[in-house]
Every structure is written in structure tokens, then in C-alpha cells.
């Protein structure tokens, strides 16, 4: 067995730097704190690359298939005689893959932010939070057991909350951060319940035990527990609820668009590349349990993914805030991944979907981060999020333009760029599993191409808006990350994922299925063409079309009124119909009762005061009657 204990450092270093910057950041020069944070991430990144190379290649683990290795573990809390919460590091294909993704993107974002955040108040706070996030995210992917995952899951949520609300003086940002936290928190409740059920029935939190085909989870006796589904299925569905919340799956997605209130690098890191795919990672992590133990739950995953991707794609076509467009596209892409997992089987060829999902996760991280950072550069240049204020920027921002274009092509799925390969695998997997989902994905592919190029054209082409001060290209510290990520977006597709990241660790052969690939490409091209026609030059076409679609356009534009629904539930139901009455009840009924007792005593005392009339003879009366009363009682008792 090979020693990977040092992987412990990968999350720890950012944590240490978080403490360092957090406590003493305000004393040092802003740029210093930024550099420290970046350096920390740099080290982490190097370590994870070393890990990846060792794990996949130099340590020759491939022969018997990639096993998961528990690099390190300690007991953190002792719950019952069976259940103990451990903290540790688990090394296996997907975690290593995630390490690469997170450190790479995070490093890029750090570097980028050095320039982007220049002159901001709370520069050091920003980098402290970034380090905190990186720590939590890395801890999450390295989790050896589901409870450790939950712990870091929460931490990730909080750092996301802090970063979204970074501009805490902006009410909208505060609201957005609150929304994000509470919605995900609600989802996490499902996650927690799922964990409780699962752990109670299996007697363990440990991933290796849970996912081993002979483990207590998968071999758990089935049998309908509730609504015709087994306990395991239910627990897995609950757990997926948590994943859906983090990954902004329909209908828990509403926080993601608002989360764009955060600084753009944050959106790139958290809400495009890493945190939002935690849900996918969760399902992938427990994949054997889903695939072998709870296929019904897996079906749920598939459909949720499919619906979300379509739903988001449609909305994306109508939004005008470029970051929101990207947000919805993220949601739609994650939908792809979920669907891929959903349609996948376990082991060898059947595991295609699993592989594809992770593959797409990887490539998506690259190009979506690129898109966001690009968008950041653009916003940096024109000081606006709305594509209406943009146009003809290509001559002002050459590098941004080039990289952005690459990203768009990639996400549209045009060969030979990365997006094509991963998406194609997903298509194949879907085709083998379920034709309806498959067709949905085709549609989405077209839509994706369309709205991305709509975005692209209306930013860089179209009418040349005259800006009150001419936009200028971002400094190198910002453009270099763009280029690096662009490189990734181009070539990531050639990684032999099917040999590395598979459902059971066994490599298998996957070949391009032209009967599926070619049509998908064509659809993508169609979408691009349409976008070109509509937005290449500014013309009345879009409004006309909008008019034609009419009501449905309006609905899509208003995101199908999901926010309103949520607002109704929270504001009206929870707040208006529960909390207010409860508070009233407490003040007036419960407390009122207590006061009533006191008042009754007082009143009684006023009531009987006339006994003490001050009249000697009345005292006599009372005296004698009292005596006689006693006599009566006594005689009564005595008989």
C-alpha cells in the first residue's frame, strides 16, 4: 500500500492560511494577504498534481483497477457504540479528479482576483474567505465518511454564504446570501435525515463500507418501507435532496441566479466550477449504492437532472444579465451530469454514464470558470452586467474575446474541443438507457449552443455601443488565468477518462458513436446559426420572435415565477401563517394565562376584604359561625 498521508496537507494549508489572513489580514498590506492566499493555494495545487500523477500513473495501481485508499483517519466524535464520526482523507479516482479541478480553478481564481479585487474594501477578507472555501471544498472531496462530508458540506455552504454577501452593504447581496444559505440549508435537512436513516440501518458512515457491493448498505434487505420503496431507496433519495440543493437542481435552484450578486471570481469558483458540482460528486461518491441498492432513487436523479437542464436552458435563452445567463447554463450543465449519473449502470461498459458525468464535470469546470472569469473581465471593463449595455467589444478586449469564444464553442459541444467529448459520452449513455431523456438532451444541446452564442454575439458584436470611457483590456494578472483555462478547455477532452475514472475502477474501452455524435453536432451548429442570424448584427428579429412566443417567452423571462412561489411559501405561509400567530399566541395566550393567575389572586384579595370590616360584632359573628361550621364538619365526619 502506498502512503498518501501528506494529502492531509492539501486542505490544511488553505485552512492555516485562512486563520492567518483572517486574524492578521487587516494589519498587512492588502496585496500581501492576497499573495499569501494565492501561495497557499499554489502549494495545495502542486500537492494535488503530485497526488494525481502518483495515483493514476507512477504508483501502478491501474493493474487491479483503481482502489480507494484511506490515506489518513482519526476519530473526531464518538456517537454510539457503532457510529463514530471520523475525519480523514480518502484517495480514489473521483476524489483525485476533484482535487485537480478544485485546486486548478481555485488557483486561477486567486490569481485573477489579485487584479480583479484591487482597491476593494476588505481585500484580505476576500482572500481569507477564498481560503476558507478551498479548505472546506477540499475537505469535502477527501471525506472518508458521509458525516465528514456533511460537516464540510455545511462549511462550504457557509463560505459560499459569506462570499455571496461579500458586499454586505448592498441589500441585494445580503438578501441573496441569505436565500442561498437557507435554501441549501433546507436541502441539507434532507441530507441529514438521509444520513440518519442510512447510518441507523447500516451502522456505519464509512464510504468504503457503504459502497462495497458486499457492504451493509447494498446488501440491506429491500422490501417496501414506504410508498413501495425500500428504506435504502428513501434514504438515498433524501441524501440526493441535499445534493440537489447544493447543485441547484430544479426545484431547489432558485438561489443560484441570485448568488451572482457575489464578486465574479467567486461565481466562477463556487457557483460554476466547484461547490455546485458537490451534489454530483455526492451521488458519484455513493454511486454503487444508488446503482446496485436503490435503482429507483437513481431514476429520480436522472429525471431531476433532465428536467433541470431543459428548464434552465429555456430560461437562459431569455435572460439579459450575462452572469445570470451563465448561472442558468451552469444549472443546465449540472443537469447533464446528474442525468448522466442517473442513466448509468455499475461496472465496466455500463458505467459509461458515470464516467461521462465525471468527464463532463471536469471539462465543464474548465470552460465555465473561463466563461465567468471572462464575464468578470468584461464587467470590469464596462461596469455593467447587462448585455444591453454591451456590444462590439471584440476590438477593445482581444484576449477576453478570444478566450470567451473558445469557451462558447466548447460548451456548444463542437469537436474537437473538450465539451464535445464529454457531452457525447453522456448522449451515448442516455441513448442506451432512456430515449425520452436522450431527446431532451438533444434539445438542450441545441438551446445551449443558441443562448451561448446569443450571449457571445450581443457582447462582442452587434451595435458598437459608445462607452463614456473606452473599455480596455484587463491586466495580465487577469488575462493569464483566462488563457490557462482556455488551454484546459481545448485539450481537457483528450484525457483518457474511461481508463481512469470509472464506476468500479476498472478501465474500459469507449469509442465515438458517430450515429449520435454527428446529429448532436449538427443541432449545436443549428443553434449557433440561429444565434448568429439573430444577434450577429442588431436587428428586430429577437423582439419579433419574443412576440411570437408571447406568453411562454414572458414565463421563461420571469423564470417561470419560481421565485414568486418561494416568496409566497416563505413570506406568507411560514412567516405570516405560522410565526406571527405563534408569537401572538405566546404573548397573549400562554403569557396571558400566567398574568391572569396573578390578577385573579389580586382580585380575590380585593373581593374578600369586607370580611375585615372593623366591626367587632361582625368578628363575633364570623367567630361563632366558624365554630359552628367546624362542629358541622366534625359531626359529619364523625358519622
Amino acid at each position, binding site marked *: 500500500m502506498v502512503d498518501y498521508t501528506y494529502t492531509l496537507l492539501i486542505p490544511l494549508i488553505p485552512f492555516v492560511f485562512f486563520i492567518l489572513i483572517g486574524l492578521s489580514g487587516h494589519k498587512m498590506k492588502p496585496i500581501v494577504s492576497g499573495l499569501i492566499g494565492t501561495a497557499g493555494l499554489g502549494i495545495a495545487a502542486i500537492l494535488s498534481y503530485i497526488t494525481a500523477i502518483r495515483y493514476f500513473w507512477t504508483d501502478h495501481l491501474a493493474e487491479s483497477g483503481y482502489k480507494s485508499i484511506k490515506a489518513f483517519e482519526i476519530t473526531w466524535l464518538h456517537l454510539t457504540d457503532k457510529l463514530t464520526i471520523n475525519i480523514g482523507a480518502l484517495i480514489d479516482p473521483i476524489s483525485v479528479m476533484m482535487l485537480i479541478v478544485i485546486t486548478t480553478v481555485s488557483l486561477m481564481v486567486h490569481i485573477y482576483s489579485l487584479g480583479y479585487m484591487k482597491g476593494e474594501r476588505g481585500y484580505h477578507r476576500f482572500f481569507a474567505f477564498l481560503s476558507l472555501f478551498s479548505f472546506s471544498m477540499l475537505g469535502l472531496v477527501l471525506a472518508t465518511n458521509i458525516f465528514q462530508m456533511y460537516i464540510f458540506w455545511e462549511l462550504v455552504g457557509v463560505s459560499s454564504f459569506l462570499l455571496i454577501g461579500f458586499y454586505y452593504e448592498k441589500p441585494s447581496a445580503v438578501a441573496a446570501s441569505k436565500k442561498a444559505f437557507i435554501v441549501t440549508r433546507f436541502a441539507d435537512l434532507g441530507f441529514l435525515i438521509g444520513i440518519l436513516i442510512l447510518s441507523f440501518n447500516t451502522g456505519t458512515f464509512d464510504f468504503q463500507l457503504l459502497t462495497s457491493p458486499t457492504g451493509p448498505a447494498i446488501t440491506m434487505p429491500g422490501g417496501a418501507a414506504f410508498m413501495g420503496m425500500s428504506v435504502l431507496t428513501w434514504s438515498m433519495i433524501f441524501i440526493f435532496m441535499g445534493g440537489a440543493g447544493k447543485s441547484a437542481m430544479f426545484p431547489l435552484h432558485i438561489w443560484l441566479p441570485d448568488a451572482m450578486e457575489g464578486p465574479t471570481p467567486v461565481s466562477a469558483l463556487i457557483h460554476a466550477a466547484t461547490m455546485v458540482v458537490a451534489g454530483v460528486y455526492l451521488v458519484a461518491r455513493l454511486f454503487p449504492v444508488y446503482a446496485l441498492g436503490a435503482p429507483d432513487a437513481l431514476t429520480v436523479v436522472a429525471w431531476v437532472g433532465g428536467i433541470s437542464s431543459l428548464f434552465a436552458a429555456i430560461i437562459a435563452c431569455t435572460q439579459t444579465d450575462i452572469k445570470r445567463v451563465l448561472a442558468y447554463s451552469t444549472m443546465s450543465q449540472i443537469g447533464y451530469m446528474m442525468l448522466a449519473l442517473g442513466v448509468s449502470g455499475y461496472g465496466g461498459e455500463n458505467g459509461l454514464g458515470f464516467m461521462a458525468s465525471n468527464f463532463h464535470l471536469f471539462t465543464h469546470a474548465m470552460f465555465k470558470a473561463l466563461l465567468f472569469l471572462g464575464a468578470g473581465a468584461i464587467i470590469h471593463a464596462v461596469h455593467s452586467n447587462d448585455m444591453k449595455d454591451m456590444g462590439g467589444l471584440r476590438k477593445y478586449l482581444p484576449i477576453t474575446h478570444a478566450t470567451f469564444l473558445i469557451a462558447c464553442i466548447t460548451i456548444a459541444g463542437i469537436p474537437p474541443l473538450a465539451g464535445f467529448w464529454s457531452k457525447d459520452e453522456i448522449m451515448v449513455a442516455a441513448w442506451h438507457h432512456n430515449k425520452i431523456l436522450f431527446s431532451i438532451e438533444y434539445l438542450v444541446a441545441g438551446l445551449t449552443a443558441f443562448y451561448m452564442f446569443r450571449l457571445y454575439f450581443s457582447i462582442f458584436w452587434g451595435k458598437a455601443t459608445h462607452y463614456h470611457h473606452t473599455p480596455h483590456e484587463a491586466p495580465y494578472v487577469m488575462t493569464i488565468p483566462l488563457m490557462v483555462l482556455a488551454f484546459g478547455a481545448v485539450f481537457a477532452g483528450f484525457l483518457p477518462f474511461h481508463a481512469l475514472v470509472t464506476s468500479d475502477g476498472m478501465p474500459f474501452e469507449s469509442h465515438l458513436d458517430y450515429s449520435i455524435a454527428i446529429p448532436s453536432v449538427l443541432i449545436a451548429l443549428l443553434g449557433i446559426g440561429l444565434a448568429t442570424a439573430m444577434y450577429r448584427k442588431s436587428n428586430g428579429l429577437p423582439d419579433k420572435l419574443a412576440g411570437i412566443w408571447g406568453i411562454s417567452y414572458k414565463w421563461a423571462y420571469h423564470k417561470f415565477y419560481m421565485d414568486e412561489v418561494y416568496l409566497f411559501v416563505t413570506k406568507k405561509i411560514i412567516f405570516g401563517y405560522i410565526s406571527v400567530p405563534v408569537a401572538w399566541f405566546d404573548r397573549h395566550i400562554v403569557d396571558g394565562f400566567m398574568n391572569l393567575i396573578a390578577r385573579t*389572586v*389580586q382580585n380575590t*384579595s380585593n373581593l374578600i376584604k369586607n370580611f375585615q370590616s372593623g366591626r*367587632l360584632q361582625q*368578628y363575633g359573628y364570623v367567630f361563632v359561625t366558624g*365554630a359552628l361550621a*367546624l*362542629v358541622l*364538619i366534625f359531626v359529619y365526619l364523625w358519622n
Partner: protein
Amino acid sequence: MSIYDFMTMRHELILVCLVLLVLIIDLNLKKSQKHRIIPIAISLFFIHTVIGFLPAQTGELFGGMYKTTGLTILMKNILNVGVLIILFQSTTWLKKEENGEKISEFYILLLSTLVGMNFMISSGDFLMLYLGLELATIPMAALAAYTHHQSRSAEAGIKLILSSALSSGILLFGLSLIYGSTGSIYFDTVGALYSNAPMQVLAFIFFFTGMAFKISLVPFHLWTADVYEGSPVNVTSYFSVISKGASAFILIMVMYTVFHSIAYLWKDIVYLVAVLTMTIGNLFALRQKNMKRFLAFSSIAQAGFILLGIIGGNKIGMTATVYFVLVYIFSNLGAFGVISAISAKTGKESMDDYDGLYATNPKLTLLMMLSVFSLAGIPPVAGFFGKFFLFTSAASGGYYWLVFIAVLNATISLYYYLLVVKAMFINKNDTPIAFFKSDIMTRIGLFVCALGIFVIGFWSQVYEFIDKLTFAIIN
């Protein structure tokens, strides 16, 4: 029967001599020097108190009419200490002009009532009991009417003398029936012969009402408040602790020894009366503004608590009652001491006058707070222990609900005791009672109370000592 046998009634004899001595000395004092009697009387009584603690012989006299046991001696000593404190506290008030000529009357009357109580305590038959009772009551009426130029004082006097006459009339009627049905007035004989024949039950009730009047149990309590309010403060405190304590003691003695054969009957009555007394007393105390009246009602409630000790009907009850009386003397005298000190200096007796007292007279305030906490039964002061043991005795009889009612009443009482604390500490007042210093004797009296309130609780020997003595009576 030799002369030495009379030493068994040493307390009473010395007291009687003391009274005569004071009288004689007073006759030889000029008008202007009347106040000289104060130190003399106090020192004499102090000596008497000290002598009281010397080992005394126990036994019977007059064929059992008069009994002296360890417990009676203890009780007398407790009363002596209480009276001594009262004498100390009363000096400031007595020195006032208005009392110029009749200072010694105060002592003579007070001490003669004390003689009565001593006889009552160690009475062995109903005749002695009745004698003591009357001797303890009639001079008291005179004391109540002590400041005769005040109409309230006179009213207090008449209310006391007449209603006590009525009650003792009823009591006597009961006694006559007892005599008629048993042919004896000696406790032992009566106790042996007593049964639940209707006439004897009737007799018992009449007797009980008479005693209930003395310790002011509801519904025989109505005189209490008025008399307490009308009388001079120190006399009031004397009523509320000394006479009440003595009567409670003899009541419990008689209940346990004479009427134990019908205990199953009187327990129910005591239950009822206890609940009534506690509740009514508290309900009235809630609304009082005059401190004396307020304490009058609170002392009625306290009497209700005492009944919990009686109802236990066993050794714990006896001990707890005596112990409670001891604690009660100190706590109540503490409170009355402060009131008398203030009313002697300023003549203010209303609770509103006490607003903001802490700012000006912190020491008095603290003593007052200690006393009311002790009365409310709040740890760590003695009252807590007293109540706890009383309730324990009731619980030992299985009267859990009675205990519950009692504790709830204690909570209500805490409310009005806290009102006093609130007045002194929290309420704002533009014209608080100015700072003043009482004379040395008064201060000694107050200090002793404070000491007692603290020590008696923690010092478990006190309780154990009482327990040893009661063991001799009831076993």
C-alpha cells in the same frame, strides 16, 4: 413537699419577683426620673434570662397541675430571649415624652403576661391552662391600649379584650363539657378517658376554637390585624411572636397528649383550617400598606404554616414546630425591630415611606431584607430551614397536597415580601426617611436578630437539641 420543689417553677417565681421589684422601684422614682427604670428593668430581665439557662430540675407540682420538662424550660427560655430582644428594641420608643410616666407599666404588664404564658406552657391541667391563658391575655389588652390618647390604641384594646373574652367563654364551655364527660381536668386522665363521643368532640371543638383565637387561625383571626395595627409597635411584635409562640406550643402539646385518641378527627380539621389560614392570610397581606397590618396578616399566614407541624402528629412535627417558633421569633422581631426603630424616630409606618430606604439607612434595610427573606423561607437564612422541617413533618404524614398548597402560599407570600424589598431597594423616592441612629440598646436588639437569623439555620445543633427534648415528650 419541700420548699425546694418550688424550684421547679423557678422561671415563674423569679418573674413574679421581678414584676414586684420593678413596681417598687418605680414607686421610689421621681416623675422626672421615670426613664431610669429602663436600664434597671432590662438588666433585671437579662439576669432572669441568663438564670433561665442554668440547669433546672424537672418534675411536677400540685399533683400534676404544673409540669416542668426539658421542653417547657427550653420554650420558656426561647420566649425569654424573645422578650429580651423586644425590651431592647423598645427603649427608643419608651424614652419618648408621651410615655414619661408610665414606662414601668409597660414592663409590669408585659412581664406579667409573660408569667401567664410560662404557667400556660407548663400547665398540666386545664385549670392551669386557663389561668395562664387569661393572665397572658388581660394585661395584654391593657398593653394594646397603652397609648391611651390615641383612639386607635383604645380601639385595639377593646377589640382584643372583648373578642378574647368571647373566645375564652367558648373555650370554657368546652372545658366544662370535657369535665362533665371525663370527670377530670388533668391532661393525663382526660387523655386516657377521651373518646369520640359527640359531647367530647363538641367540647374539643370549643377548646380548639379558643386556642385558634389565640394563635389567630382563620376564621378566628379577625381581631388580629386591627389589634396589631392599633397597638404600639413593640407591643405588636410581642403579640405576634411571644404570645403566638406560647399558644402554638401549648396547643400542640395538648393536641398530641390529650386529644391524640381522636387525632384522626382533628387532623382533618387542622388540614382545613391550615389551608384557610394560609390562603386568607396571604390574600389579605397582599393589599396592605401599613407595615404593622401587613406583618399582622403575614403572621396569620405563618400560623397556618405552624399547623403543618401540628398535623404531622409525630416527633418531627413537635420538633419542627418549636424550631419554627424559634426561627420565627428572630425573623419577625427583626422585621418589627426595624419598623419600631423607624416609627419611634419618624412615626412613619406606611410601606410607601420605606421607598428608597436603602440609600439612607442601608443597615436597617439589609436587616429588613434578611427578615422578610427568612419569613418567606428563602435560603440561606434560618426561615428556609424552619419551613423545610415543618413541611417535612407534614409530608411524613403523607399530606403531600397540603405541602404543595403550603409551598404555593409561600410563593404568594414571597410576592408581598418582595414588595417590601422592592420598596426599600428599587422604588425611587424624593424624600426618603433621613439617616438616623437608634440608641445603643435598640441596635443591640436588632443585631441579635440578624445574628439569630443567620446562625440558627446553619447551626444544626439547635435543631438537634430541640429534637432530643421532644423525644422525651413523644415517643
